[in-house]
């Protein structure tokens, strides 16, 4: 099974892979059609822009997770890490703002990126050099990051300095030619990620390691380096998401990013990436993140689901989306 993905892909790169990749998009189209039938407001430009914009955080983080998961790893710490990076970034910007003014924003972004990469490196080295199961290793760092953000905020809220608030706001609320900036950012991240995963040696190695660690090692791939790098990419993606997130509410709290890891993993799997590794689908992941957000949106826009049953209906829809995806592969 596993070596199929590692084997030369050229022979099968025709129809079959094309259709397999179409799965999440078919599910997305079906969902949009159903949404329109339920409530025509669903397709209003405003609603679509809102929903796709707010799916950007999960999409960007999930693109990073596509690397980790396709290389056979898992990262449960992304939600806490997002909160931690947000906190570090806000505290840093507030600290330098009195001296440098709005230049604090680009500096804060740089600090966020460095923090994210460091967090990813930490996860990666614990998993590879420490030889600890990714599930346990990142469960540990998930607790650590969550505790750190709680400590930094004293359990309450750290808000961004008022002098920076308006200057930074457009990064979430602004648009270029009508397209909201977070959407552009996630498209850019997806383009780069797709290039790296499909067109570079690292991308192929990533998938090969996930497909069969031993075979990859025998063919001269440094499994440690590839896996660690995947976690570093994940960390950088979380930082990019945090950079887009901060201007939305302008604050970090201990509940920021709570349970994002589950949404991220769901988005990745809906998108067609194999949870046990060896197969990664960047654009599918993006579609998966948008699907999740559309489902939540539909729950509010439709009238026939009791507020008590929303989560159950969401669960059913996710399973159906997976089935559509699976069937389109046959």
């Amino acid at each position: 099974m596993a070596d199929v993905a590692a084997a030369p892909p050229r022979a099968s790169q025709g129809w079959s892979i094309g259709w397999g990749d179409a799965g999440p998009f078919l599910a997305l189209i079906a969902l949009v059609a159903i949404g329109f039938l339920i409530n025509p407001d669903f397709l209003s430009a405003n609603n679509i822009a809102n929903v796709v914009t707010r799916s950007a955080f999960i999409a960007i983080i999930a693109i990073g997770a596509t690397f980790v998961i396709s290389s056979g790893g898992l990262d449960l710490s992304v939600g806490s890490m997002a909160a931690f990076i947000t906190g570090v970034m806000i505290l840093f910007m507030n600290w330098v703002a009195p001296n440098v003014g709005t230049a604090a924003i680009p500096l804060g972004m740089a600090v966020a990126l460095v923090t994210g990469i460091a967090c990813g490196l930490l996860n990666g080295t614990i998993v590879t050099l420490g030889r600890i199961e990714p599930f346990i290793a990142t469960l540990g760092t998930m607790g650590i990051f969550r505790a750190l953000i709680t400590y930094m905020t004293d359990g309450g809220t750290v808000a961004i300095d008022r002098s920076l608030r308006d200057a930074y706001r457009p990064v979430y609320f602004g648009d270029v030619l009508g397209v909201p900036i977070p959407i552009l950012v996630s498209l850019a991240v997806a383009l780069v990620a797709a290039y790296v995963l499909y067109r570079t040696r690292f991308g192929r190695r990533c998938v090969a390691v996930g497909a069969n660690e031993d075979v990859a090692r025998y063919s001269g791939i440094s499994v440690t380096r590839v896996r660690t790098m995947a976690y570093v990419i994940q960390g950088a993606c979380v930082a990019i998401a945090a950079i887009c997130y901060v201007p939305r509410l302008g604050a970090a709290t201990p509940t920021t990013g709570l349970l994002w890891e589950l949404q991220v993993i769901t988005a990745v799997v809906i998108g067609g990436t194999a949870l046990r590794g060896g197969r990664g689908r960047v654009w599918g992941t993006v579609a998966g993140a948008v699907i999740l957000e559309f489902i939540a949106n539909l729950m509010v826009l439709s009238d026939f689901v009791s507020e008590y049953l929303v989560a159950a209906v969401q669960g059913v829809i996710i399973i159906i989306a997976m089935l559509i995806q699976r069937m389109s592969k046959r």
Partner: protein
Amino acid sequence: MLRNALIAAGVTASLLAAGTASAAEKKIIAVSIPAADHGWTAGVVYHANAAAKEIAKAFPGLEVIVKTSPSASAQVSAIEDLSATRKMDALVILPHSSEELTTPVKTIKEKGAFITVVDRGLNDPTIQDLYVAGDNIAVGFNTAKFLVEQLGGKGNLVVLRGIPTVIDDERIKGFQDGIKGSDLKVLDIQYANWNSDEAFKLMQDYLAKYPQIDAVWANDDDMLLGVLEAIKQSGRKEIKFALGGNGMKEIIEKVKAGDAMTPVETPYPPSMIKTAIYLTAAHFAGHAPVRGSLKLDAPLITKENAEEYYFPDSPF
């Protein structure tokens, strides 16, 4: 940082006090509260530590020990450890959950400690000597009355609920009782788990779904922050009020500033833990009878009385 400073201050204070009064005479008040994992509990921790410091200063014969616990089972262990290692004269407890804490607190009561229960009651009310709580029904009811009055008894509302719990149910019930008999209509009501991000998304969806909304009630201030951001982004002008509840300092600041959209607030103040600790201290230091229950009102906080509910140094 602050917490360490407080602990250090507490230790120093108790050392100094030990010089004058012998350790045996010192009455120990243990305070067991949830760990700070969101705004409201962060406020509880802040006010408990502040009370501990103030009481240690004011009454050298009393010592207040504050312990925070992240879960109900951790809280059970914490109070068991406390009672095993120290002589406890009083326990002030804000229980994580009523069911799990009832028996452990009863055991401590049987050893002769004075029991003060805060906010959430235990399953057996005979255990408590003193009960201090806020009024969740009034939080909903007073907000509803304000809206009925201000909107002239007519209009479309949307409501955001918290996490399915008794607290949430009571607030919603109070609110629904408050609008009964008026022509205020609740267009929609959904859970947003007392979380700003979820509230932001939910409010965006409400705005997409309903072309005419007169007022929004988020039954907690964390959610209100998300709601306000969504309204601001939408540019919609017809929404007259967006109200919250609990008494977060950012929202009290708005009330003080005479904000048009959020002119009032209803308190469910985390500082009630301070009330409870002071009353318990009065039992020992002041020889004042305090056995009974105290239900704090949830009066509307307006520009006039906002100062009373404003704690600029608190994290909440």
